[in-house]
């Protein structure tokens, strides 16, 4: 809500969105002008013009006239209560002041809307995520390449890809270059062959007949060692991957590797003959201070000698400890870094059902890439890894506390292989250094390689002139490079820094025709960055090449939604539309809510993403986003919400009981928590979020100089939010705006600061700006479904369009939007139908 403060007046105007047109200027001569004449003319009239303002000369037609900026100043003064001054003889009555404020607010909003006709369509730079995903698809390496880039700013509409508002700095350009260098070093490997490392641990009571006297362990808080008698370690390496000599040979890393159950309580695990028995793990309780550990108990390998990058595979031999227990245990893994005061780790996405039995152990494999996990940093001064890597597993049938028994598992062995896993050379290399009959002739082959890479990076065929230029660079670099591979690598860095890669060029060369004309290749990019948040694949480029894409749009949309890459659309769009990232910033008071921890928060994020994905992939009505009879849960989040009988870490669709209070986005934990202050619900934040995100009717920004509620002020901190709110409303200059915002949030008062249901009669009753009084969240959802149905549809279409086009919408888009909304309604509000209507609209696919 505070976003606009400090921007120039016109920018403030642009913040308001959908306007109600044509209702504001009628009453001017009869109702508005007399008020100004009565209270303001003395100082701002014919005689005096304090502050150079003279009301009888201001153009009352705010919308079309030239004085909108001045009127905005007038509104600010009224809102602040500064004018007329306190010492004035006459001051307007509240009702009069309110009439002025309402008239000004409505007119200015309308003016802003009109102003948007001038919205400029400007080519956009790839966002951080788009850049990362594009490198992933271009290099065939699933790494978070863009993580070091500075974050993208948000446009007034909340999106990161608005070309006009994107900025670029030297820092960013330097990063583009550094990242390109780093990425290509990983894609084209010159030091061959690579090395693979393997760490094999076996567990069982007394299985080591020749135990080491002592582990080479670091001492940290709450260590729980596995005795050297109860495990064996063998580590080995393969220095000839991909050659005839390929073989694993035992090395001495085992000397410095050991298993541990750090943080575990005795009752939750035991060392058995067949391995380590793990009962369902209990998540670490967030204390917000210095210790943080994996769920307990976790069986964790600690490795000190270790490659810092490359693929890994973790193989765990595991069984259910008790065949009679009907509940299913799950296994989950994590990779991270050992710290004195805890562990820093990331959980692997997959949670795998354990079906093995003591007679027949099951082997579960987890795969990934080390760079995507918080592995210890390499210490270049000491030429050593700064601390130890932790590779852990736990029983993911998570338990709330010690009293929960649940199904136990037995881990018999863990094997961790890393550095290089799989075929050699890697796909990334083969994809760049393509097979060719010219591969023996550097001068010819280099041109082929560069051209092939450029075509893919630029998402269109590179012109002859362009290829000449880049090949010319290669020629100049080659003499200073030790190998052909290196010279290619260094040349391709420049391709990845070219604006043809970094920007989505959509405008035609002047003096070409209408603004809606885009080429088939540009359409392919627009489509793929919309539905995949990444670059077009070979098929899309081929269709563009054959000029068939526009004709085959419906089939392609269908294919693209089914493709797993549509998950990147769901993540990026939901994140920006619903401000999800910001929602995770709330610092929850963990003393008040001890069961809230980062697992719960992360699962809340997943719930929302998966929920939207479910609506998309099952092609359901978008009204499910307002209210649904299901949501997406795993055991952890279900337990937090108080929903029983959801077992295991895997998310699945859960049908909600009638009184579950969890249907639709508004009822999801993420937004209820994100729009609280961590201690109490915050109706202003909730209300503002709801009307701007769900209804696309954002509140105007607060008038300038309104002091923020200083929550650090001890006098304020003592008051509950409701009391603060009440105090705020007592200020007449605040009440007008807040009566449009707060009621929406007050209807959610039965959810506490972390989104749990705490019903109190009458607590959630509020009167909406329309005059309608509602009670509680169910009534709110019904109201939106019945009476704001069209507004919600339009809101979602508009948010999607802004995201898809990378620009703000203007008055001139109105007709096309109306047409899309009409189609969506005809098609029973199905989400895929909506996307099809949008994409085939001239707004998106042009001519």
């Amino acid at each position: 809500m505070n976003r606009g403060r400090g921007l120039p007046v016109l920018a403030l105007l642009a913040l308001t969105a959908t306007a109600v047109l044509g209702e504001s200027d009628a009453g001017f001569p009869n109702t508005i002008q007399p008020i100004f004449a009565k209270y303001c003319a003395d100082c701002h009239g014919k005689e005096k013009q304090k502050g150079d303002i003279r009301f009888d000369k201001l153009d009352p037609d705010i919308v079309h006239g030239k004085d909108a900026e001045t009127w905005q100043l007038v509104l600010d003064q009224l809102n602040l209560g500064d004018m007329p001054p306190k010492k004035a003889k006459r001051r307007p009555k509240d009702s009069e002041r309110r009439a002025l404020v309402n008239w000004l607010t409505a007119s200015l909003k309308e003016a802003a809307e009109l102003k948007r006709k001038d919205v400029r369509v400007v080519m956009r730079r790839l966002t951080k995520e788009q850049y990362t995903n594009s490198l992933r698809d271009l290099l065939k390496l699933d790494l978070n390449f863009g993580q070091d880039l500075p974050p993208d700013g948000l446009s007034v509409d909340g999106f990161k890809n608005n070309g006009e508002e994107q900025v670029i700095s030297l820092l960013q350009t330097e990063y583009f270059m550094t990242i390109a260098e780093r990425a290509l070093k990983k894609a084209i490997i010159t030091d061959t062959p690579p090395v693979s490392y393997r760490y094999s641990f076996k567990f069982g009571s007394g299985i080591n007949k020749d135990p080491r006297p002592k582990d080479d362990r670091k001492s940290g808080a709450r260590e729980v060692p596995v005795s050297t008698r109860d495990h064996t370690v063998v580590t080995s390496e393969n220095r000839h991957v991909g050659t005839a000599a390929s073989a694993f040979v035992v090395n001495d890393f085992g000397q410095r590797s050991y298993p541990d159950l750090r943080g575990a309580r005795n009752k939750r695990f035991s060392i058995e003959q067949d391995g380590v028995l793990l009962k369902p793990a209990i998540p670490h309780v967030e204390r917000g201070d210095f210790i943080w550990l994996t769920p307990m108990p976790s069986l964790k390998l600690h490795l000190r000698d270790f490659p810092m990058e490359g693929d890994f595979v973790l193989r765990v031999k595991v069984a259910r400890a008790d065949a009679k227990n009907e509940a299913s245990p799950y296994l989950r893994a994590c990779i991270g870094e050992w710290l004195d005061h805890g562990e820093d780790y990331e959980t692997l996405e997959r949670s795998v059902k354990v079906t093995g039995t003591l007679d027949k152990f099951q082997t579960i494999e987890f795969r990934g890439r080390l760079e995507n996990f918080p592995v210890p940093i390499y210490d270049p001064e000491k030429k050593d890894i700064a601390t130890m890597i932790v590779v852990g597993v736990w029983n993911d049938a998570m338990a709330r506390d010690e009293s929960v028994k649940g199904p136990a598992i037995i881990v018999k062995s863990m094997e961790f292989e890393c550095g290089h896993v799989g075929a050699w050379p890697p796909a990334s290399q083969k994809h760049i250094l393509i097979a060719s009959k010219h591969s023996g002739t550097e001068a010819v082959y280099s041109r082929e390689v560069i051209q092939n890479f450029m075509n893919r990076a630029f998402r269109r065929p590179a012109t002859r002139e362009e290829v000449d230029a880049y090949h010319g660079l290669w020629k100049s670099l080659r003499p200073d490079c030790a190998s052909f591979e290196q010279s290619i690598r260094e040349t391709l860095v420049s391709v990845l820094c070219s604006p043809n890669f970094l920007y989505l060029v959509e405008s035609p060369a002047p003096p070409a025709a209408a603004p809606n004309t885009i080429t088939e290749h540009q359409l392919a990019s627009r489509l793929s960055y919309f539905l995949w948040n990444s670059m077009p694949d070979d098929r899309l480029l081929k269709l563009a090449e054959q000029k068939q894409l526009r004709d085959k749009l419906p089939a392609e949309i269908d294919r693209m939604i089914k493709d797993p890459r549509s998950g990147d659309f769901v993540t990026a769009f939901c994140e920006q539309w619903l401000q999800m990232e910001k929602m995770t910033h709330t610092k929850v008071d963990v003393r008040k809510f001890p069961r809230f921890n980062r697992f719960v928060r992360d699962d809340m994020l997943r719930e929302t993403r998966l929920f939207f994905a479910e609506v998309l992939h099952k092609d359901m009505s978008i009204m499910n986003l307002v209210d649904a009879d299901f949501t997406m849960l795993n055991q952890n989040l279900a337990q937090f919400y108080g929903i029983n009988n959801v077992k295991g870490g895997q998310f699945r669709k859960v049908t909600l009981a009638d009184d579950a209070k969890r249907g639709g986005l508004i009822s999801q934990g993420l937004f209820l928590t994100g729009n609280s202050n961590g201690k109490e619900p915050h109706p202003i934040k909730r209300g503002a979020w709801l009307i701007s995100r769900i209804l696309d009717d954002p509140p105007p920004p607060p008038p300038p100089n309104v002091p923020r509620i200083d929550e650090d002020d001890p006098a304020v901190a003592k008051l509950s939010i409701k009391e603060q709110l009440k105090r705020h409303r007592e200020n007449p200059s605040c009440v007008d705006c807040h009566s449009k915002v707060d009621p929406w949030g007050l209807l959610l008062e039965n959810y506490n600061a972390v989104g749990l249901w705490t019903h109190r009669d009458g607590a959630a009753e509020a009167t909406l700006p329309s005059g309608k009084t509602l009670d509680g969240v169910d009534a709110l959802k019904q109201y939106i479904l019945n009476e704001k149905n069209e507004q919600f549809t339009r809101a979602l279409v508009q948010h999607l369009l802004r995201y898809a086009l990378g620009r703000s919408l203007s008055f001139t888009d109105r007709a096309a939007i109306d047409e899309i909304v009409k189609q969506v309604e005809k098609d029973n509000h199905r989400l895929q139908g909506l996307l099809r209507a949008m994409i085939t609209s001239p707004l998106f696919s042009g001519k």
Partner: protein
Amino acid sequence: MNDKPWHLDRRTMLKGMGVCCCLPFFEAMAKTTGQTTQPRRLLNLYVGNGVSLPHKKFTKIRDDWHWFPHAAGSDYKMTKVMEPLKAKRDQFTIFGGLSHPKSRPLLGHTAGDSWLTGANVGGEYRNTISLDQVVAEHYKDETRYSYMNLSTDGGTGYRGRATTLAFDRNGQPIPAENDVRGIFERLFQIDNAKSLKARKIELQKKRRVVDLVLQDSRRLKKNLGKADQQKLDEYMATLRDLEARIERLEAWQNIPMKKFDSSHLDLSVTLKSPKEYIRSMCDLMVLGFETDITRVANYMLVREDNLGLGSKFSTVLFGFPDHHGMSHGKSEKNYKEWATYDRFLIEQLDYLLQRLTDAKDEHGPLLDNTLVFYGSSNSTYHNARNYPLILAGGKNMGLKHGRYMKFDENKENLSNLFVSMLNALDVPTERFADSKGNLDQIFKA
């Protein structure tokens, strides 16, 4: 890149003089530009594990050996710990009550990671850029190296137990160096022909890449509408900046090192003789300022906890328990020993300040244009509040000294002081980390 004629002059001159440009070059340039280019410098010196604040029940020891003076103001009385600085009383200020709010709930040792950053390094560790790096970034084009980052233990350490004070813009630790000879050879003996040639080739290649991208951008621009052309111009401007930066780096390769006298520098020191080692590290930083190869230096003398080599100094020198061990002690004897060691560290600070006073450039003693920030992220045993801090030097930047300034931690964050320090260093700053204002009292008598 920059509209200061200073840079252009230097480049133009270089082109004219080629590789043989002679030594008094910098002084000559400084003379022509006068006081306006008077360099401003920052030096941060960290000692982990807090300081001895003897318990109330040991009245005598507390009176004599308490690190903080017993009363604030300009007529404060130094305890025995501060006595080595007696002659420099008007050159420094002692601060009390300052700390980083986000680190207050943490185990004191962990707070070491946030000394110069003010970030949240507990729970979900999210470190941010450190004070020195903000200054280094600001002045990076003015000197050969943007910073010198030293620590007794070297490297980065690990999260929560860093062995470096410097963190980059993404909160990643920047490795520190600890080998005196190695640092000297790398930073000061740079005219080795072979490595010089390799560096030049690397820079040349990099410039070609940027040139090509610029050329490609110009080609693209011809085919764009007006609004897009403007957008592309923004990107091209950053490419030109990058090109200028590479040119500047290339220019540095052609400038020989300023002549200096390093006869006092003992390169053979090892950690077995702590006092000599610490002094050599200080000498290196002073030499770095003297030759103006950098404006920013850090030295983490003692890292947090018992893991570091610096923690052993107290045993090697005095036969006391190790530094971290002393910080856990509760006896009278222990407080006394710990304070004795604190005094030893203050003596080393005195040595550093003296060296910065003796070393002069055309603007006078280096100390007058240098901020020396000394201290810890623990007041005492595991307590990450009320950091013991000293700020010295900077007379020419308007700093007023000779006081013990005590603050209410509810009102002042340590980051407020950083804001004022940055402005003193001519790095215009309104906010740093969680600052809520500034501490401009340091400029007022």
